[in-house]
């Protein structure tokens, strides 16, 4: 099936992406080619096989014992508690919380 510009825009919105006008047409063409190629799978699907797990992919349950979240290694950060290390990566934080814009747009905003 071919994907139109409208369809690409709708899916991009679901994925929280904005595609520029110029990119939209290119993407629609490229994605249509890819989806056309993928559509060959129709003739190979008899609907019978199930989602079986690979032999290799056995699930290993953790023994669930308390331990420090970061294992000590030679390259470990000083003595900084792990939370601080995570917060150091945050674009913005306040005290021990991540700081983000308000969930609702300010009045006059378009959301």
């Amino acid at each position, binding site marked *: 099936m071919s*994907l139109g510009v409208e369809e*690409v825009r709708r*899916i*991009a919105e*679901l*994925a*929280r*992406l*904005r*595609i520029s006008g110029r990119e939209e047409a290119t*993407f629609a063409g*490229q*994605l249509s*080619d*890819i*989806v056309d*190629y*993928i559509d*060959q*799978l*129709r003739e*190979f699907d008899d*609907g*019978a*096989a*199930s*989602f*079986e797990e*690979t*032999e*290799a*992919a056995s*699930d*290993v*349950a*953790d*023994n669930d014992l308390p331990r420090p*979240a*970061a*294992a000590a*290694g*030679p*390259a*470990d*950060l000083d003595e900084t508690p*792990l939370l601080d290390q995570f917060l*150091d*990566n*945050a*674009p913005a934080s306040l005290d021990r919380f*991540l700081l*983000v*814009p*308000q*969930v*609702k*747009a*300010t009045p006059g*905003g378009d*959301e």
Partner: protein
Amino acid sequence: MQPLTAEGLAAAIRSGERNAVDTVEAAFARIEKVDGSVGAFLELWRDEATERAAGIDSRRDEGLPLGPLAGVPTALKDNMSLAGHELNCGSRILAGYRAPYTAGAVERLVAADAVPVGRVNMDEFAMGSSCENSALATTRNPWNLTMAPGGSSGGSAAAVAASEVPLALGSDTGGSIRQPAAFCGVVGVKPTYGRVSRYGLVAFASSLDQIGPLARNVRDAALALGAIAGPDPRDSTCSEEPVSDFLEPIEDGIEGLKVGTIREVRTSSLEGDAARGFEQALEALARCGAELVEVSVPLVETAVATYYVLANSEASANLARFDGSRYGHRAAGARSLGEMYTDSRSEGFGPEVKRRIILGTFALSSGYYDAYYGRAARIAGALRQQFADAFEQAELLVTPTSPGGAFRLGERVDDPLAMYLSDVFTTPTSLAGIPGISVPCGLDSRGLPLGLQILARPFADGTALRAARAFERETGFECRPEPVQ
């Protein structure tokens, strides 16, 4: 003179014949000399590497035992965590991110006394087959600097091929270790899914991602795989299956071993003289004493399509975490949380990552889920079964690693589908969860390396390594790319 192997370096450092500090310094000198033209490294960890090497030397001087990779300079792909170091995954969206912890495979590598010397380039989020989707740097093929090194672990392969380091870790989701290894004339191992911990590896497609080594010869790859493989309770898909000694039986040869070619892998589809390369590889295997048989795995023809549905579906979910709130790039001036998500992601991700997220979102979206994701998952299940049946008739299977040798930088960037099709022989292995090794099998008429891919049953990684070693002994390939001599 050929550079020393990882195995040889480690032995010399353990015996005191060499110092780890000198070895690491020599690696940095080599990187300084050639990386300007190769462009494999994104960052060097000079001070920390020297300090770690000094620690190894002094432990030896005190008579303490050293690990199997003692003092071996090793490059890490830019998607593996080493605590305290920046990690970008080839993307602008992770700019400034510092890993708070170390990946399981990297912990094991360091416990074996290898010395991480820096991080190397990759396609953004491991999505690509040429390293050209990196937002950070251009990496060139050491055999011909106008050619792509392959991808996504192109930095790892190029660094090893150019003798900047004897060893690198890469990750493979649909061929990302094997294809660049083939393009750069080195050995690359995609282990059985679950053989190596994924803890601390940035997730692309969690059911397919696997870390593995790239090295200049099979013994070094086996040594490195032995060091990084094994259980890790922090990755629930990491197997508790005991790790066998990969080196001990590696010289045993493959006399009488049944090696299968796959009927549906058509050599007529190969580019240039890759078909001749593959024929010669089969002759070499026969000279090693392998009994060649033909098996049928009809669904291999569907693997690229199946792979791009499943991998991108998983990627669309895994990459939802990059939204500007917890780490990496945050767009300025957003007026709401939703706007911040959209703006940060739109600015931070490159075009290929966006295409794949859109494709994955499409495949999982209401109305299309069963026709795309469901169908692909069913076909992958049937493909696994076909491989299991094929392995009833042959101990190992072989294919070319890629339809041809390296392609020119820029040649396929505007045609994503053409780029995807270079994974035609590597994606089936990934979907089946089985081990795959790419071992050099000579040069094409352009003087660029070709790879032979050797596949084995789940957890028979050692058998594949033994065959790769026999093949390497027989063919005597030397990785000596002229432009970096």
